[in-house]
């Protein structure tokens, strides 16, 4: 994959945001003693939620994909975005987000979205529904396409 400067900038933005989220989480832990609802230290250990961004990675067998219809399932999905240069339309129904992506579709990240807890990344799934080539012809099958949700 060839990334351009926009991609690098976005990745830097995500890193800073992750640091800020971690800092906030530490502050919440530090202030937890003042909270009447804070579990006692002798309760079992609860892994703290880590809000963050997950990405949908596409592996395509073709080089002329021009439109992609995918669904992403998982709770608390928000702020679905596509890499720069893509035209994205999204509809969300419950835990299912359906996204239509138009542009030059290639292997790599095709979407990213925010989730309440990036640690639950494994609970997020994505499926390729339709793929059209640059002549608008829909692929007869999408078995060769692989999409994964990654942190």
């Amino acid at each position, binding site marked *: 994959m060839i990334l351009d400067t926009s991609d690098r900038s976005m990745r830097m933005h995500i890193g800073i945001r992750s640091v800020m989220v971690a800092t906030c989480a530490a502050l919440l832990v530090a202030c937890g003693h003042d909270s009447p609802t804070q579990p006692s230290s002798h309760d079992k250990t609860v892994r703290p939620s880590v809000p963050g961004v997950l990405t949908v990675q596409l592996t395509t067998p073709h080089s002329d994909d021009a439109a*992609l219809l995918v669904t992403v399932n998982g709770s*608390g999905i928000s702020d*679905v975005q596509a890499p720069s240069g893509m*035209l*994205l339309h999204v509809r969300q129904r419950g835990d299912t987000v359906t996204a*239509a992506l138009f542009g030059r579709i290639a292997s790599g990240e095709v979407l990213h979205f925010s989730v309440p807890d990036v640690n639950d990344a494994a609970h997020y799934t994505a499926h390729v529904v339709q793929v059209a080539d*640059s002549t608008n012809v829909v692929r007869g099958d999408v078995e060769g396409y692989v999409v994964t949700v990654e942190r």
Partner: protein
Amino acid sequence: MSGRSLACARCVGKALLVVTAALCAFAARAAHAQQRVTSGWLHAIWVDPHTGRTPPAPVYVVIDDAGRWTRLSLDDATLRAAGGLSALDRRRVSVSGSVITSAPTSSTTPAISAMRVSSFDVTSSTSASTSVVASNPQMGSKPYVAILCRYSDSVAVPYSASVYAQWLGTSFPGVGSYWREISDGLMGIEGSKVVGWYTLPHPYSYYFANGSQQDPNFDALLNDCADAADADVDFTQFSGVILQFNGNASAAYGGSATLARDGQTKTYGVTWMPNWSTPATFAHEMGHTLGWTHSRGPYNQIYDSHWDVMSYPYGSYETNISPSTWVGEQTIALNKAIAGWIPASRILIPPMPSSQSVMLERSEDPTSGSGYLMLQIPMSGDGGPWYTAEARRFVGYDAHLPGEAVVLHTVDMTRPERAWVVDVDGNGDPNDAGAMWTPGETFNDSLNGITMTVDSETPTGFGVTVIRGWRLEMQAMGPGAITGSTSGSCTGRCSTVLGTRGQRVTLSATPNAGAAFTGWSGACSGTGACTLAMLGNRSVTAHFSAALTIASDSMHGNAVMGAPFADTLTATGGAGRTAWSVAKGALPAGLSLDSATGIVRGIPEAAGSYTVTITATRDSLTGSQTIQLTVVKPVLAAANVMDQLLGAATPLSTNDVRFLDLLGNRNGHLDVGDVRAWLIDTGTLESSHVASDSARVLDRAPTTPRADRTTNEPRHNPEQRP
């Protein structure tokens, strides 16, 4: 045989030879004695009976240089062989024939020399002109001397000299004004003189054999009456001599004679008038003195045409026309042309072939306009015979005509009566409608290729169209033309005139584009090319049917891509089933024309503007119409399109979805490829983006997620804005 017997036989033979020779010599002498050649001036004297309608033939005489009269007996065939009376009258001739001198019927009756004519030899010059115009000119002052003579055994006279002087005066009506008027002022008898009554040297029976009232001795009457007046008359001052007698006769007579008087021998017009003569009789007989023959109807009657004083001179007393000095109708145009009273410029002789519409002015008291006064229409060659046509109106001496009309005559200058009225009804009356051609009526002689139509009536004449030749009238009814070997292309009404009888003409009918030829009528029939033999005037009509007219119930509206479209075409004109087709251009993809119903239907698959020519055919009719059909794309909201694609809702109609599919990959349902095509089509997605140019970055900001408006769940993930 003995010697004596033989001698006797020889004597008998000699005797027979002598007798035979003597008989032959006698016969030869006798035959020679009966043959005679007489030279002199030939004159005709017309015989006009008081009653009856069939006069004797004119009396023909030759007057030699010594003033001797020889009556000629000749039949019509001999006369016509010599060129007719026109070629002989008042001409110097040499006549061969057999002498038939009659013996005097009594001791008081002079013998009349006569001969049966076998041949003529005209020794005076004759005109070779084929024109009648002024062929016997009668111009200027032509005074007559009227000599009143009574028989030695009869005292009573019909009228005094002053009455005859009044007749010959110039007051209207009267013989004097008559000639001045009917000649259009070109000839008059002013200066005429009446002398007498003189007493003849012989009684009535001397001049009429046995007092029969027939067959007068013209020679004796003329010379004795002229002798009686000789002291009072200078004959050299007069053109004609009217001999008025006080006795009855079966006829009045008019003609000419050679007379030697006052040191001059010349031809005079001469009449021999009985005691019952009238001004009309005067006019008629004076017409003969001008060399005019009778005219007539076509019924072998002489005095039946009321169109000519030279046929019917009885009007003044048979129809009680007042006053008694009424003369009668004028003469026909032929006589006026012969006299030079109608100039050549006012006589139309139409060439062959030709068609002309002209004004035919009245021949009596004509206006000074430029209209023709006579049509002279040759039947074959220009030398005759002809038809003449003239306009007759109620004016002047024509006030008592049978009617106002164009009157036709056939003219043959070799006939005893040159002009015969054309009377088509054959009812024996040449004075009724059958002889009167009025507006709307057409005379046609198809054998000779002559047609004359009276087109209109004017205050002073008639408008006529005269055609020489065989007219082919064509009419193309409807959208088409008649083309032919002689006529070029004819649309509407047209005609042509052909100059050869029996000429063959081939006509074709050519319909205009989209129209149809449905058949001929008239002289042609069927639907193919038509060949005519022009044996007469012919009229043909080619019938064409107009092109079909195509109408549409919605053809001029817009069709929408992806939406069902239907338009019913209708054709008007003709009958039967209609076949429809696209003649030019193409309907939008997805639409088709039902060739049987004329319905354009289907779902337009591509937007655009289409120019299509539709053709309808019904029987042999064809109609075409070029139409503009525009297929537009539906205007869709982007949100609706995405909702439809992403399954959030179904806001699009079936037609909209079909449109998107047609715009995209046409696989029968909406998919991401279709939406991509629509985005490109609407400009939302730049078409360049489809290229595999990875270095290019779209400036367009990504679309943010949008809440699913169809969900019942709380909007926990509201739409974010960039």
